[in-house]
């Protein structure tokens, strides 16, 4: 007997006056996505609150050994409900789900349990999943909306990459972020009012790249630091104690693979699932089509970045896919799975030889595809400099920063390595008595 679960639905009616909260995983992307939803009558709002209260609220309502992202996301939701700023009877919550053998597929259940414990059992929770298991009359994923969300992701990836490549070098601090903000508004307005024409989208890509290329920058050479990891702590400033800002303040350039890569990873796993386990021949076909389609979309952006020449294009996903070979099988599909391993190598190849591997303390898939793969990766790529950072409500920021500083010190030494060695030679070695 399989148990059927009841849940509160987000109805058509609620659209008029319910605010739908979205956790802030990727600041640029999610703003785009929220605005796309707004255009479809869903009053989505990205929660940007931060501070220790969120973690504490999470700990109060979620089992403390649960992954840190669940504690944070649920803590943030309940904290917002308790803040008094909103009428909890006029709020719905949305979580993004991928499913799979990782415990993360339980976030929805954990959120509902937590809401019940906190006395908000009546708040509807919308599970945003392409698998679309739950039905919410007020939130139907139409093809048109999905289409727009896809571009929210590709625009988001492009903006994020350009901001990352500009921020450490810009003459006037904040220019890149401001431009990203302006583009976010412009792009979503455009999508709201017009049918999507792919030619126009590509034109937008071009114009964005051109626009960012005009930002006055210094020529300084900076250490490139790649960030990989569990998806929430990898991207969310709330989850990783604003890792990107810290790295930039330490004089590094941050390189983060895009969200589309993760989407393609999910699609790719659907293909592998068939090939490895003989599951879902129909979905296999669908996934193959989707995979090809997305690859093409990514390739187009890459071409446009190359064309302009001012920025480093990202690695095509089919290349990333091939990079995990010799390290880990594509059958490892729980959590970030083989993608995490592949991304570490992809970053190394593309010049970000320093990699921060982020994970929630005790993250199960990362034992295998993160920490478990560091030794073989280091063996084959001698000069890669990887550091694993655990995030947790109890982890101290000082410790995390100290470890990152350690990595940066090694990176800088590596950067001017030859010079250093000569100096050691020249100095007579005197051992202090």
């Amino acid at each position, binding site marked *: 007997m399989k*148990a059927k679960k009841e849940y509160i639905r987000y109805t058509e009616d609620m659209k008029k006056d319910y605010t739908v909260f979205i956790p802030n995983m990727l600041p640029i992307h999610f703003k785009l996505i929220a605005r796309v939803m707004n255009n479809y009558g869903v009053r989505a709002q990205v929660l940007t609150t931060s501070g220790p209260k969120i973690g504490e609220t999470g700990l109060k309502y979620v089992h403390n050994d649960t992954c840190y992202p669940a504690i944070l996301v649920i803590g943030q939701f309940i904290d917002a409900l308790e803040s008094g700023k909103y009428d909890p009877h006029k709020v719905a919550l949305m979580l993004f789900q991928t499913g799979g053998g990782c415990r993360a597929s339980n976030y929805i259940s954990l959120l509902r349990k937590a809401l019940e414990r906190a006395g908000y059992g009546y708040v509807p929770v919308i599970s945003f999943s392409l698998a679309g298991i739950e039905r919410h009359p007020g939130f139907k994923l139409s093809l048109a909306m999905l289409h727009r969300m896809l571009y929210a992701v590709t625009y988001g990836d492009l903006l994020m990459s350009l901001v990352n490549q500009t921020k450490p070098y810009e003459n006037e601090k904040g220019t890149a972020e401001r431009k990203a903000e302006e583009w976010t508004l412009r792009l979503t307005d455009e999508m709201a009012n017009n049918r999507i024409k792919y030619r126009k989208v590509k034109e937008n890509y071009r114009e964005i790249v051109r626009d960012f290329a005009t930002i006055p920058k210094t020529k300084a050479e900076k250490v490139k630091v790649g960030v990989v990891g569990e998806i929430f702590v990898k991207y969310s400033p709330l989850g990783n104690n604003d890792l990107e800002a810290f790295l930039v303040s330490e004089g590094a350039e941050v390189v983060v693979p895009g969200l589309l890569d993760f989407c393609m990873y999910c699609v790719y796993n659907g293909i592998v699932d068939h090939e490895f386990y003989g599951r879902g021949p129909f979905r296999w076909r669908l996934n193959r089509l989707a995979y090809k389609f997305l690859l093409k979309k990514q390739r187009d952006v890459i071409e446009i970045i190359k064309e302009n020449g001012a920025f480093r294009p990202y690695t095509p996903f089919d290349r990333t896919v091939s990079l995990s070979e010799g390290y880990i099988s594509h059958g490892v599909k729980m959590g970030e799975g083989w993608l995490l391993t592949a991304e570490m190598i992809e970053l190394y190849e593309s010049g970000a030889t320093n990699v921060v591997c982020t994970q929630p303390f005790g993250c199960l898939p990362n034992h295998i595809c993160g920490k478990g793969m560091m030794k073989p990766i280091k063996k084959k790529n001698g000069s890669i400099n990887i550091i694993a950072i655990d995030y947790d409500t109890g982890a101290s920021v000082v410790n995390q920063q100290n470890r990152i500083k*350690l990595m940066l010190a090694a990176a800088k030494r590596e950067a001017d390595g030859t010079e250093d060695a000569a100096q050691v030679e020249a100095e007579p070695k005197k051992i202090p008595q």
Partner: protein
Amino acid sequence: MEEKKKISYEPNDGALRSAGNGGTGSFSCAHVTVGVDVGSTTAKIVAVRDGKIVFERYERHLSAVRQKTAELLREALSELGDVTVRAAVSGSAGLGVADAAGIPFIQEVAATTELVRAYHPDTEAVIELGGEDAKIVFFGGSVDERMNGTCAGGTGAFIDQMATLLDVTVGELDALSLDSGKIYPIASRCGVFAKTDIQPLLNQGARKEDVAASIYQAVVNQTIAGLAQGRRIRGKVLFFGGPLFFCEGLRKRFRETLGLSEDDAVCPPYARHSVSLGASLFARDNGLETTLSDLCERIENCIVKSSGEATLPPLFESEEDYKEFAERHARATVETEDPDSYSGRAYLGIDCGSTTTKLVLLTESGKILYSYYSSNRGNPVEVIKDQLGRIYSLAGDSIEIAGSAVTGYGEDLIKNAFGVDIGVVETAAHYTAAKRFMPDVDFILDIGGQDIKCFRIRNGAIDSIMLNEACSSGCGSFIETFARSMGYTAEEFAKAGLFARAPVNLGSRCTVFMNSSVKQAQKDGAGADDISAGLSISVVKNALYKVIRATGPDDLGEHVVVQGGTLLNDAVLRALERELGRHVVRPAVAGLMGAYGAALKAMNHKGPSGLIPWEALENFTHKSTSTICRGCTNNCHLTVNTFSGGGRFISGNRCERGLGRDPGDAGLHNLYNFKRKYLTSLPSKPGTRGTVGIPLSLGMYELLPLWHGIFSSLGYEVSVSGMSTRATYEKGQFTIPSDTACYPAKIMHGHVEELVERGVDLIFYPCITYNVDEKVTENHFNCPVVAYYSELLAGNLEDTGKSRFFFPYLNINKKAQLEKELFACLGGKDAGFTRSAVRRAVRAGFSAQEKYYAAVRREGEAALAYARENNTRIMILAGRPYHVDEEICHGIDRLALSLGFVVVSEDSVAHLAEQPSVRVLNQWTYHGRLYRAARYAAEHGDTELVQLVSFGCGVDAITTDEVRRILEDGGKYCTQIKIDEITNLGAVKIRLRSLLAAIEEKEAARG
């Protein structure tokens, strides 16, 4: 409170200093480089001129980071004069100072690296232990630097704590360790774990020498497992940092464990100063050039920026607030009576706790004649012997001790040593005591030195028991140790916290993690008072949200009695009332409640007391020796205590076998044993195709019959690695990359090593994303670790010799698919296989698997039937299939057996219950069984469920709440036991006995 101990990490002599050169050099000398290293506990400064150290200091800063640094620099100024220097700062607490004072900063490992490159370029690895940091830097090839992450165990602070626990100085600890004869296994994951292991050893009378060496071994293991992460430490190794410099015994343990020769293990004379010396090297080219006096001023005048961490509101707004609070609590007292004027019967209660020993002597009407509370100083037997003498002398002829009872960790030992009449389970003792203060008490919260215990009471019986899991214990003694490290007694420290204006927010995780939070607060300039208050608040939050998992005051009930030594601390008590938003009762004897309850229980004793008489006490002697039990493969370290008069008490045993009793013969069914026997005795026959080695861990405990059947049928000889032992783990520990994975996963490394040693041709552990589909759950995944651990093994094993590691991705739910895949990955026709042979093999495998399942179910049913016929209690010891491993479950099954339970496993009874609805995604096969087993327990009055949870099992964070709900909905107790590398069976025993006591009380209440 004991006096403050002198901490011995201090410069012991001037021998390391260069001779002469008192610092009369010329003012313009620009060749002096100054390295400042401000760590978590100490500040270190060196000044180097012409390659010679001309000034060095190493002192504890007691959190006064800036002041101490400035003070040491002032000393340098007076010795060296106002020379021109180049200076740089390093160290975890130095960052804030460096930023604020505008002095270049170098990360401490980077500083160490500078030093090694300059002076010891042939070094292969550096091991550096600091106050709270542990680091390994690998040279040789690429430089690879490792630091301890979130876990601060196994460091100097840990050694300090352990010395305190043994009541010796760090120096004495070191001397003791050099005299050891044996090493006890002590958990090396973090300090708290180790502490829970050491305490029972002490209580059971283990030799201090052996314990001291074992503590060092734990540090060594922690360093290897946590930092080396699969990279071997070889060649020339440098030992840096205070603890390694001062502790010869620690270096010895490292040398022996790593197999280093004397020549390769180097601890240079400047080992304590490695970081500051490295910083001074860095300063040569990158330092701030200035005068020494300016350097002093910069540090004195800088304002360290706060990182903006929010502070908490003060505990008390005003003196009046505190007065009201103090008066209210002063009312909960027990009457006392002067022993000189009392004559008649008296009852003695002893609570031999983990860190403290408590005694209470009551009159017949329950008034206190005498009470005692003290640290047990590593030897409770001596403490109690002295106290009994004192009590007898007080009693004289007029008072007769008519009954005695003992409770706590040391219950068995003390009972045997002194002939105490009754042994009382801790929980029962505390409930008895609490009822005296609040007859309608419905919640008892006890925070002791080592553990948090909470009982909820419903209908006059203990309804649920919550004990802290090993990872969050150490609450009370944590505050105390912290107080000492900051130079306060526990009392002074608590008092300081009462009126702190801005308590720091330290979060609510395992207290070990708080070390680093405190470090941060210190960096931000928080004073001892704010830290004290912050710690108190954290301890409370830990208890409420981590152990009790309360969402609000209502979860705790209306009538709360609090007790335990830690709650004697007013700051903690206030924090609790604040957090709960209601008043609680703290009896004046809050620290003595166990003993008080025991004394009340002693009143039930009929007949003359068997307590050791005064005359015999004079000649009482106690000797302890250690030995290893060979009763089974567990090889328990036994401590044999012999007392004058012929009394003998053996501890350390997991079962009764070493005591000359064999529970296996009691006739009780034990499914764990059944499964172990079944899986280890699958017949193996010689094969023509070579040998397949199968590591018996993780998923193999489920599917061994299948693979065994398949490979046997294909003509392979199957070689199964067998049951794990501690040695199995140790064999593989060098290749474990992720220290926080669960123990069943980490032990895999040892199994594989074993198979490599046997020289098998293939080592087989397939990747199985989808586990057996039992058709009752929403999906049937394996957890990521069980599914893909081979990938990790393949990437991290060093050398598998002639054995090939073979880990295909297989689908076990479609026979045809499995056939196809196996055929292909075994090499197909080219390797001489035919499809039909593989088909036959798969069929043989599945029939073996089915046979196994049927046997387990049959045995489960037989066990249930037996129990019901013989009126025996049933325990479902529910975990994962791999929890039946002797080393993983630490003999908990036998312990349950010895308490009179028939033990069944979750998979032997899951088929007897419907799948209950759960509020989470029920998508793992093993967990589906867990829920069904819980439902079976909920539906059957005679069945209890005890859930085994591996430390670090992320999935169980989701299942435990559901299991609890299923059981509690059925009116059952929910008992969850966290198991890890080392599990303190003493604590498990208390839990299981408490469970028994609670069941019995409940049954008695029902009538």
